[in-house]
């Protein structure tokens, strides 16, 4: 080749730019294995001039890879820690697709606007100011309007603004009605609904200023997490309770869906009251369909000009409960081909529900909620809540892909895992080169620094330290909200799982008392995963059931089939509140298993609540 093409003096690539790129790569590979690292540490490795660029890249990556609980780090905590990068942070958030999805769930929204007031609407996407609120970013355009991230002009707080499509400037009756509605919404204060701060008008279009709720949507949350039936009931009850005051004043949300519920600190928060306002407007204009079809009550679809009552929300809450319990929306359950058609033919029969739900009490309640006749349903949230309270919810885990929820901790004993069989132990050094063994086998594994680092890293306030080669994670999370303890362990498997049977045995030690408070409420949920992301429950037990009980073996082959490693974990769950008087310890220990042959390679997972 002609030397002409060779640079006379090789021009090296800019070292600092390369370093930035490598640091980002390093961070991304951590995130991909569901770990995290401190920004400070990475930022300290690069020259000052490039720190803002690196920060921006790290944040974008951080937002791209949600942690196992479905969150991406809270905007408020970034703003607090890095006030100097406020622009970068807000920019990254407002451009992040997921974030906009969590804020404006219009996935199935149908809002066929026919009236002429929408024809000459200003394109709001580049608006800089809405009323007195400076706009940070446009999040989403939906059938019902536009959603923005904005800032309170004096208090500096980040808020969400939803601008509705309908113009009301020439209609004082409608304006008055909107203002009245806005007052009712602003006065409704409940931890399970978004707080409405303000109602104002932009170019004749009403807009609602709401609290900025951070968290994954219920539907994205449930893609990775599992909940108990008790939690399902508790969540629907919480939302019902939050709606009582509004229903009493005839305000109907009209769009309760898994995409309109965010999970904040393990609790559901109903967001987006855009349709609640629009509801009244629609009566004047008869603009047609508005809502999310699988959760819309028949009267919303079939007779949009008929008055909407709180019983419409009852239908949606029933659909929500069904979704929580079965993972299916109403139209899926009856195999309807067409969302809208569904409501013409739908008769939710006992049989169809019976197939999906063995528990009879749920069935009766759901049949009521999902009745096509409004008069046969509970009339409002108050009645529904009473019925929900009457159900004694079992705490079985609903079988779907899982991770964590909320929980406290408490009367938890010890749980031991033993991946076992007996016949032919596999030497760890031969891992990855062996053909699959026949039948069951014993798995030998060791704790390493790497595996210790696997767990609890993403928990804020979690302190991770190592003691004598044992992984010990300790976190102090005094809180009145329910919380959950979780420990994870990764075990490499020497061959592709699938042809071999893999079983797990657990051992429960006598419960530990924590006062008397948790004695009846704590459960240990044992889960396995092939990738550390999608978990399936293979056993759950309550610590009050039996002391010192051995359980299993549980076959987990189907959960981890096809992989070469298995992740195991225990989640500790309680339905009552954690009073916050002491630390929770969760630790892995390498310890003899007290009654079987070879003891040394067993693995014990122990979780202890202590304090006082």
């Amino acid at each position, binding site marked *: 080749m002609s030397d*002409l093409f060779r640079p006379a003096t090789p021009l090296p690539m*800019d070292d600092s730019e390369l370093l930035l790129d490598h640091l980002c790569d390093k961070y991304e590979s951590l995130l991909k294995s569901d770990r995290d690292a401190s920004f400070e540490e990475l930022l300290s490795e690069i020259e000052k001039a490039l720190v803002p660029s690196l920060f921006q890249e790290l944040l974008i990556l951080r937002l791209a890879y949600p942690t196992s609980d479905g969150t991406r780090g809270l905007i408020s905590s970034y703003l607090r820690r890095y006030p100097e990068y406020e622009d970068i942070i807000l920019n990254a958030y407002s451009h992040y697709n997921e974030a906009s999805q969590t804020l404006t769930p219009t996935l199935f929204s149908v809002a066929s606007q026919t009236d002429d007031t929408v024809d000459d609407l200003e394109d709001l996407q580049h608006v800089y100011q809405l009323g007195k609120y400076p706009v940070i970013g446009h999040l989403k355009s939906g059938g019902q309007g536009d959603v923005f991230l904005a800032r309170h002009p004096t208090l500096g707080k980040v808020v969400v603004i939803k601008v509705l499509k309908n113009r009301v400037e020439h209609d004082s009756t409608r304006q008055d009605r909107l203002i009245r509605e806005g007052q009712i919404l602003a006065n409704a204060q409940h931890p399970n609904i978004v707080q409405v701060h303000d109602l104002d008008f932009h170019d004749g279009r009403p807009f609602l200023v709401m609290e900025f709720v951070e968290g994954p949507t219920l539907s994205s949350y449930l893609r990775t997490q599992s909940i108990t039936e008790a939690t399902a009931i508790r969540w629907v009850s919480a939302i019902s309770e939050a709606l009582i005051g509004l229903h009493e004043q005839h305000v109907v949300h009209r769009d309760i869906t898994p995409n309109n519920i965010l999970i904040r600190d393990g609790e559901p928060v109903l967001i987006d009251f855009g349709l609640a306002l629009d509801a009244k407007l629609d009566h004047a204009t008869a603009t047609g369909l508005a809502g999310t079809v699988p959760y819309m009550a028949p009267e919303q679809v079939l007779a949009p000009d008929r008055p909407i009552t709180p019983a419409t929300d009852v239908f949606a809450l029933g659909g929500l409960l069904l979704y929580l319990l079965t993972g299916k929306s109403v139209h899926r359950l009856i195999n309807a081909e067409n969302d809208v058609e569904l409501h013409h033919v739908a008769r939710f029969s006992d049989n169809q529900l019976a197939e999906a739900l063995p528990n009879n009490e749920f069935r009766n309640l759901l049949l009521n909620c999902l009745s096509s006749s409004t008069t046969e349903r509970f009339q409002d949230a108050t009645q529904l809540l009473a019925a929900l309270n009457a159900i004694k919810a079992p705490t079985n885990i609903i079988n779907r892909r899982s991770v964590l929820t909320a929980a406290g901790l408490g009367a938890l004993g010890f749980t031991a895992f033993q991946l076992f069989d007996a016949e032919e132990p596999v030497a760890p050094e031969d891992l990855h080169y062996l053909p699959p063994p026949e039948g069951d086998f014993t798995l030998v594994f060791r704790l390493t620094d790497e595996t210790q680092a696997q767990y609890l890293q993403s928990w804020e306030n979690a302190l991770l330290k190592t003691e004598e080669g044992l992984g010990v994670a300790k976190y102090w999370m005094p809180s009145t909200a329910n919380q959950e303890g979780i420990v994870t362990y990764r075990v490499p498997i020497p061959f592709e799982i699938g042809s071999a049977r893999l079983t797990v045995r657990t051992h429960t030690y006598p419960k530990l008392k924590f006062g008397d408070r948790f004695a009846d409420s704590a459960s240990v949920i044992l889960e396995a995963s092939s990738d550390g992301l999608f978990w399936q429950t293979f056993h759950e037990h309550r610590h009050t059931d039996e002391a010192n009980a051995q359980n299993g073996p549980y076959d987990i082959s189907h959960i981890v089939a096809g992989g070469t490693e298995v992740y195991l974990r225990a989640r500790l769950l309680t339905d009552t509140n954690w009073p916050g008087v002491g630390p929770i310890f969760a630790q892995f220990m390498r310890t003899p298993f007290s009654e079987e042959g070879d003891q040394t390679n067993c693995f014990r997972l122990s979780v202890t609540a202590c304090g006082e």
Partner: protein
Amino acid sequence: MTTVDSSSDSSVTQWLHALRSGNDDAARQIWERYFSRLTGIARKYLLTTPRRMADEEDVVINAFQSFFHGVKEDHFHHLADRQDLWQILVMLTSRKAIKQSLHERRQKRGGGHVRTESGIPGPNKQTPELNINSVAGAVPTPEFVVMMIQQCDVLIEHLPDERLREIALLRFEGFSNSEIAERLSVHERTIERKLNLIRSHWRRLLDKELADE
């Protein structure tokens, strides 16, 4: 230059002029026309010319072949992006072509007679700027394709790590950022970041070439 209408409207020279004068729209039009002709030549060349030694492993040739074979109109959309690697490659190659023709002229001790494919006559021949047309000009030549391949070899080789080389080649093959991200199991942002790194590096090479002239 605001209009693009002469028969030699697809020259690299005109394209560079348009870019320099900030006339993005004209630049895009010239580039698209130029590139679609280049595509025709390159496809024919790559099909009919015996491949270089060890050609099975010749990553650049392979990338070029898959690109020029598969190139469709919709590829031009992202090729029209002035940040695209193809544009940088053509610019760099053109610079080299000019250098080479100057070199040849000097060899002939001021003969000033340069092989021209387009046969553009007249006083223009006297300026180095126009000589580019003989190699990289309105009608792209197989020689230019060869130069491009050589230039690309050097550029790829010059990248400091395997990942960057891989991404540059995939981009030359015409894959979009999201396709590359999926293929390499990383976030799209990572691909964007690395492409920026590659671009800024190659642009610096280009600047250096220009400064050397």
